[in-house]
């Protein structure tokens, strides 16, 4: 960064490099305007009572929102739901994604066609997936509900979206349906780039398929898996659309993630200040997780 400013002020590396820096400056200004300013404004908001209604003026309240967030039992519960959701959805997506990617990589014919078909859910807007889920799990005419009831899996469940655990699981299924293909694509790309000589040598030594997956594929694919995990983790923490369309966080907050809580505070209760506090906290958690993943990829895995 200091080099950048040196360049601008005409220090060392004058000439062509200086022109380059001036050329990227507008882009940086735009980035500052559309990204940094809102970020700083959000942090400022988190220290304010900003009700967004005309009869009450915004006031600076110091750490009040932050104290409220750390002492609020409900906020802890929203984080727990987010965590449970992340663990549930990510485990299923990674396992399924790996299996499907492995199967696709073994295909000799029509691999491209099947890969293309796999990606179809990715092209649906999350809101549409939510609406589809509402239709499929509908108590009166939902086809999934019908089959689940026929095989006796919904015994004691009054309705899928009206019963906490069932609603939670249904939402995980929707996420898995939509986003597993992304994991498949990332892992498939990784699988294709693995050095084939090692596998050929192992096969000469008589390795079984399971051994091959466990001792060769997984360790070699570790970095790619971590990248997929990182991308999906950041997405899952923001998980919002499906919930809003289907359960709106209910019943009894069983499906209320931190993102839905932010929406409720900001756009339902008009409490922009507290919503900003929750947003910043979500951002911090995401950054910490991202940092951990990156360290894992670039650090330990290198050893």
């Amino acid at each position, binding site marked *: 960064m200091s080099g950048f400013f040196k360049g601008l002020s005409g220090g060392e590396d004058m000439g062509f490099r200086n022109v380059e820096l001036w050329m990227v400056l507008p882009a940086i200004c735009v980035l500052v305007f559309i990204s940094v300013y809102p970020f700083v404004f959000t942090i400022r908001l988190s220290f304010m009572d900003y009700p967004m209604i*005309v*009869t009450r003026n915004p006031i600076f309240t110091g750490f009040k929102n932050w104290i409220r967030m750390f002492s609020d039992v409900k906020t802890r519960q929203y984080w727990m739901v987010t965590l449970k959701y992340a663990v549930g959805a990510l485990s299923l997506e990674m396992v399924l994604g790996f299996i499907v990617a492995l199967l696709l990589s073994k295909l000799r014919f029509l691999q491209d066609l099947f890969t293309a078909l796999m990606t179809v859910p990715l092209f649906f807007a999350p809101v549409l997936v939510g609406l589809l889920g509402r239709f499929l799990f509908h108590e*009166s005419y939902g086809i999934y509900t019908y089959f689940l009831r026929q095989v006796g899996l919904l015994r004691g469940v009054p*309705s899928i979206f*009206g019963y906490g655990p069932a609603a939670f699981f249904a939402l995980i299924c929707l996420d898995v349906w939509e986003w597993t293909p992304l994991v498949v694509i990332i892992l498939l790309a990784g699988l294709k780039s693995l050095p084939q000589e090692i596998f050929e040598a192992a096969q000469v030594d008589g390795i079984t398929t399971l051994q091959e997956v466990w001792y060769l594929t997984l360790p070699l694919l570790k970095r790619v898996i971590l990248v997929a995990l990182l991308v999906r983790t950041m997405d899952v923490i923001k998980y919002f659309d499906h919930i809003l369309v289907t359960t709106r966080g209910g019943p009894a*907050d069983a499906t209320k993630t931190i993102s839905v809580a932010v929406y409720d505070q900001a*756009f339902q209760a*008009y409490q922009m200040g507290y919503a900003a506090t929750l947003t910043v906290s979500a951002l911090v958690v995401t950054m910490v997780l991202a940092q951990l993943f990156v360290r894992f990829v670039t650090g330990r895995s290198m050893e």
Partner: protein
Amino acid sequence: MRRVVGLVFLCAIVLSGTFAMSMTEEEKWTQFSGKGIVLHFLTEDTPAAGAIVSLLPEFEKKTGIKVEVTRTNVADLVTKLMLELGAGSSEIDVIYNARWQILPAFSDVLVDVSKFQQDPTLPHIPMDDFFKAHLIATSFFVDEKRQIAIPHDASTMIWFYRKDIFDKYREQFMAEKGYDWTPGPNITWDQYYEICDWINKNVPEVKYGAGHMAKQWNSLYCDFSNVFWSFGARGFENPKTESYGAIFPGRCLWDSPEAIEAAKFYKKLITEVAHPSSVGWDWASLAEAFAKGDEIAMCFNWHDYMMMFEDPTRSKVVGKVGVALMPKGKDGRSHNYYSGAGLSINGYIPEDRQKAAWLFLVWQADIPVQKEIFKMGSTPVRKSVYEDPEVKDWIRNGTYPGAKIAPVMLEAWKEENLEYVEAKIPQFVETLIIQYTHLSYMLEGKETPEEAMKRIVEEVNQATGYSKLIEQSK
């Protein structure tokens, strides 16, 4: 010099007055023609909005003012309005004043339309032709002299039931239970419970007697309110919260013995006899379930859903639906929850656009448009429409879905039957979230009715500032 200025001023007043007096009715409507005014009308997607959109070419022809309409669901509408009005934007001219969510929070930035009523250069609306209850509920906030909306629609909770089922089993039920079960204000809530239970056990045509809209959302608050008010409970100490509105509502009264009794009854109703899916249904899903035909025999829902029930492409119960006033409360009267909306003008737009918006408001409240609203399945908000000979014929013959329910609606809108349920306070939405969240906890068994009501009171008092006020006064 002063005399000359005074004389010129007087002449100007007299001239403008004479000009105004001399404006013909047509000139009042066409004064903005050719000025390129385009109004943006943001509304909930209601039958009334549908009727207005279908008639817009007539308005544009009459006034030369173009209108762009955005129709959306109420949640998105509130969010959009909150952002637009909160930012002081003049993007939207005419606002669907979403019940109690926008009116109290943004009353200061909505135009006082009484100034247009007194303007001789503009056409007027006979305000006394609106139902008084609707006018108070939709058009004022705190200040009884500052009118910031005009009534537009009149969504009211009524009792829908399957007439065919009730006719078929009437004698059998009467023989067993000893009373006529026809839905209406003579049926108590305990009897309603008994009827639900009886249908569950004896009527094979439907899976359950009744469905409810107990999803953790606005619908749960509305559904519970039907019971809440009938049991004699009140929302806040300040009675103005139920009419003109209040900035300070006083203490929240949801922990009163009546409120707790209502909560216990509601929990029993939903968890013991109602359709089990009720906890996942909002008003739209509930209507879908009723329209499906084999799910439920009764539901309480907004009266506009009659249009859906009578639409053969969306309903299997066409011609089989009866409507009635809500059950009898502890005080002996029916409590019909009114949640109508008004139309307002954005105070951030310039004066000439405000006047153009006023023309739009007057036009949509006019009798021909109101009759069109009737045809589209909703119910007009002008009293005189119901006196129109053609409309009387429609009602007599049940020509349109709106006509079929009109007699019940006219009864429901009487002062003695109507209930202003949503507290008209600036923090209404915040309190609403608290209320339906704890009600949902109660239905899931995570809180007892007493605990739920106690927590609601604690949190609502925090939200309204009552707790802080009490602390400061100590």
